[in-house]
């Protein structure tokens, strides 16, 4: 099995490889715009000789054309890699850089200072052991410094280097440095950042970056590099109970069933008792396969494959645990950093990813928002982009987790918007709101398919959406009657009628409209479970809410019918006089007048009653149901 001209390894090389076990420190740089973060990182790369000749040549020529430093090298150009950044002279996305010194390897995440890019700072911090926070010596600790330090503390960063940059511009004033240091230490104390090292620097000139500055003899502490090389950030993940979020079930042949994942904490050995959570089944470890072959034990951080002594049901998203059991809950309290331009909507369902588990999750309560400047708790109804809040979450199914304090891998999650697929928020679990260990779904012996067979129909939801007065209820009533004539089983849910009953506690704010739609979708879903054809006549103006209704159901069970009668025609009919009231300003937030109606992008059926009679519309829907084998 020789693939190439038999390279041989000289014995002399073995010592180099054996000794080259320099640990890697991952750190993040943050600070306000123009504090000189990119320059600092560029300088670290330059001074650690991480730059090669062709890269230096390119830097020299780009400094002349795109630089902001006149004849000198513009170190920021080394890290500002995107064209837009070079044009605007700012950093808009996190950049990862690699360099090494004699003692350590470093991966640095250089992150943006603009307020609107705070999400990228959180991203860089999420995988960092330490943070370098830059401040401009002329400005000291400012709002951005507080904001970033707050995010760092939320993300569990306990080690901070405060680099007080541009010392040359305040005449290397040691007194000013001392007062900035004191102010930051107070802030760090409030935030629980336990290890802070303050260093005065001049990034473009390299003072106290690698070499000690000769211009600040009053400073006797370490340089940035010396500190990064020596700081001890070792965690104790191996000392905690064993947790393995199952990523992948390996079944290459009938005799092998392995459970793959990366150990989040603890150690494990062959023969150890483990439990699968949330099911709670107990078994023992049979074999441990690692990238270095089969072994007797493994520890936190390793990607392994386990086989178990007994055949128990374990799948992706489950967690194998040993020692104390991990908490399981479907109701959590957590901190959120909101990322999406679309503000948080309570009551809306997001997709939550934690470890290898995914589940639907509704933000039930925003307990408070946290004011970045003062760390004070404020009451709020929503979170906008870059805001931080404390929320209660209601999950579709129980989650095996740890608090973020105890375990970063098992206590962190992201929320994904189910429509746009954007990462809407990053979350850190604070605590469980109740134990859900014993909550199980009742297994139903008579299921949907049995009921459907009895009724000789495929259950589904006919969702009529459109403006007020478009004809939704009229057509839905006709279809309901027609189905009864055909001996089929249907039920009509009319939005107006429901507001007199189950939804009478709801008004017309966005959040209440969302809840209104959610309840109707849930009821329609229960009717489908019962084998019925559910007819829903509801304005349901928002695309996202209709999409949530679709997601409550299985594929093919949601039929979206857009009753697309034009606004002018609806207003002309005005059967209940609502448009008149709305135009007179008596009905705020009326759909079509002062609130948008988001038409379906790809409805299953479109009906315009200004062109088609209600009876003809009814027949078209019945024909659709027949052609698609619902009847």
């Amino acid at each position, binding site marked *: 099995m020789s*693939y190439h001209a038999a*390279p041989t390894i000289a014995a002399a090389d073995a010592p180099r*490889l*054996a000794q080259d076990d320099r640990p890697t420190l991952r750190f993040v740089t943050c600070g306000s715009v123009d504090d000189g973060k990119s320059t600092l990182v560029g300088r670290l790369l330059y001074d650690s000789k991480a730059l090669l000749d062709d890269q230096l040549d390119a830097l020299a020529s780009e400094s002349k054309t795109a630089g902001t430093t006149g004849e000198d090298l513009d170190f920021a150009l080394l890290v500002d890699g995107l*064209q837009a950044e070079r044009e605007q002279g700012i950093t808009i996305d996190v950049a990862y850089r690699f360099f090494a010194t004699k003692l350590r390897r470093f991966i640095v995440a250089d992150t943006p200072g603009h307020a609107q890019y705070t999400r990228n700072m959180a991203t860089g911090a999420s995988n960092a052991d330490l943070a370098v926070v830059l401040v401009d010596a002329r400005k000291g600790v400012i709002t951005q410094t507080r904001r970033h330090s707050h995010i760092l503390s939320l993300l569990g960063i306990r080690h901070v280097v405060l680099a007080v940059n541009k010392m040359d511009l305040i005449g290397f004033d040691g007194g000013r440095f001392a007062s900035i240091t004191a102010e930051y230490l107070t802030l760090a104390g409030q935030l629980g950042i336990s290890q802070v090292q303050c260093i005065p620097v001049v990034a473009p000139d390299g003072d106290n970056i690698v070499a000690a500055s000769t211009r600040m003899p009053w400073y006797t502490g370490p340089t940035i590099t010396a500190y990064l090389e020596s700081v001890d950030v070792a965690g104790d993940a191996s000392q905690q109970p064993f947790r393995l979020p199952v990523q992948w079930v390996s*079944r290459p042949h009938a005799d092998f069933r392995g459970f793959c994942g990366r150990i989040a904490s603890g150690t494990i050995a062959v023969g150890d008792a483990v439990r699968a959570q949330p099911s709670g089944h107990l078994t023992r470890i049979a074999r441990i396969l690692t*990238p270095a072959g089969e072994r007797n034990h493994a520890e936190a951080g390793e990607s392994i494959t386990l086989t178990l002594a007994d055949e128990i049901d374990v799948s992706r998203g489950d967690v194998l645990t040993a020692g104390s059991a991990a908490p399981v809950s479907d109701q959590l309290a957590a901190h959120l950093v909101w990322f999406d331009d679309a503000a948080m909507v309570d009551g809306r369902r997001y997709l939550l990813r934690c*470890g290898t588990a995914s589940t639907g999750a509704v933000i039930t309560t925003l307990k408070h928002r946290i004011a970045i400047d003062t760390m004070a708790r404020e009451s709020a109804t929503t979170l906008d982009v870059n805001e931080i809040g404390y929320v209660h979450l209601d999950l579709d199914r129980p989650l095996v987790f740890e608090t973020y304090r105890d375990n970063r891998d098992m206590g962190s999650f992201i929320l994904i918007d189910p429509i746009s697929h954007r990462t809407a928020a990053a979350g850190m679990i604070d605590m469980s709101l109740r134990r859900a260990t014993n909550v199980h779904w009742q297994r139903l012996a008579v299921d949907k398919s049995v009921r459907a067979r009895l009724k000789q129909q495929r259950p589904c939801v006919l969702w009529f959406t459109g403006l007020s007065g478009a004809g939704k209820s009229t057509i839905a009533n006709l279809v309901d009657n027609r189905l009864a004539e055909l001996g089929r089983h249907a039920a009509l849910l009319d939005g107006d009628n429901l507001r007199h009953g189950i939804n009478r506690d709801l008004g017309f704010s966005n959040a209440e409209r969302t809840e209104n739609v959610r309840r109707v979708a849930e009821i329609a879903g229960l009717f489908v479970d019962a084998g019925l054809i559910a007819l829903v006549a509801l304005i349901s103006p928002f695309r996202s809410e209709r999409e949530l209704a679709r997601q409550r159901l299985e594929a093919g069970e949601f039929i979206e019918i857009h009753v697309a009668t034009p606004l002018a025609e609806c207003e002309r009919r005005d059967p209940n006089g609502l448009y008149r009231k709305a135009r007179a300003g008596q009905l705020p937030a009326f759909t079509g007048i002062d609130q948008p109606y988001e038409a379906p992008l790809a409805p299953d059926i479109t009906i315009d009653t200004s062109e088609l009679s209600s009876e003809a519309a009814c027949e078209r829907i019945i024909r659709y149901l027949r052609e698609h084998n619902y009847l």
Partner: protein
Amino acid sequence: MLEVPTIDAPAVPGMADGKQRRITPSHLRRLEAESIHILREAAAEFRKPVMLYSIGKDSSVLLHLAMKAFDPGKPPFPLLHVDTTWKFREMIAFRDRRARELGLDLIVHTNTNGLSQGIDPFTHGSARYTDVMKTQALRQALELHGFDAAIGGARRDEEKSRAKERVFSHRSASHRWDPKNQRPELWGLYNTMLAPGESMRVFPLSNWTELDVWDYILLEDIPIVPLYLAASRPVVERDGALIMVDDDRMPLQPGEAPQWRSVRFRTLGCYPLTGATTSMAATLPEIVQEMMASRSSERQGRMIDRDSPASMERKKAEGYF
């Protein structure tokens, strides 16, 4: 199988073959574990993933990691090679041999439109050629097979715009990368959601450096194309680069005659676009030593990065890997 000297690892109890293993440095173990985690996420989350196999050293490491990630099974995705028809002949032979030895499904795709238009790197320039035979070809192949995730061996230390790319990097239905609107990526959590027609590029080697790759190849005894090792090869010098005359399709300019020089390649691609370096490093340890003393980056040998300062970012936005 060449024998790798053991540093101080005792025979591992319970090892089926009783073979001795060397101790891998902790930073390589950490990178290895992270890459395997990413590969398994890609396999678990996507409907139809594929691994882009470019035959180079990074692809060799990626393939090795994929074999480990799913051992004792096979990786649950095929390999895809976008063949421009201008790859070094040794690369193609190596590719076919590796796929056969490992028993993997290998898909080879060539842009036949480009071929029939006679697009070649000599007459059409590297930019046009790369767009047609690599970028467009890759898009064709992904669409033809309906792959929703393409796993590649790109590293963040290679180039500035790569330094900003996510591990799971979203592509629109038209295969475009929107660098200003990337999904934030925190912890080891990846947003793998796709709308119909969209796809993901997945980069398990994001946090590796070039030196890490060579150290790992050396430690794990990973097969690589012999072109990485110095040997006497026929080259001509053009625009300061040494181009190997790999076959008789290469038009020689008046007065140009191939010279036999001891050279090797730091990166491999299409032979007319890949510059060789003068080197006597004929073994892997010699390569690593040469690398550590080197004062130039590996991409210096690539002609396509030099077209304009932001050329890589633009190519990536258009769908280049």
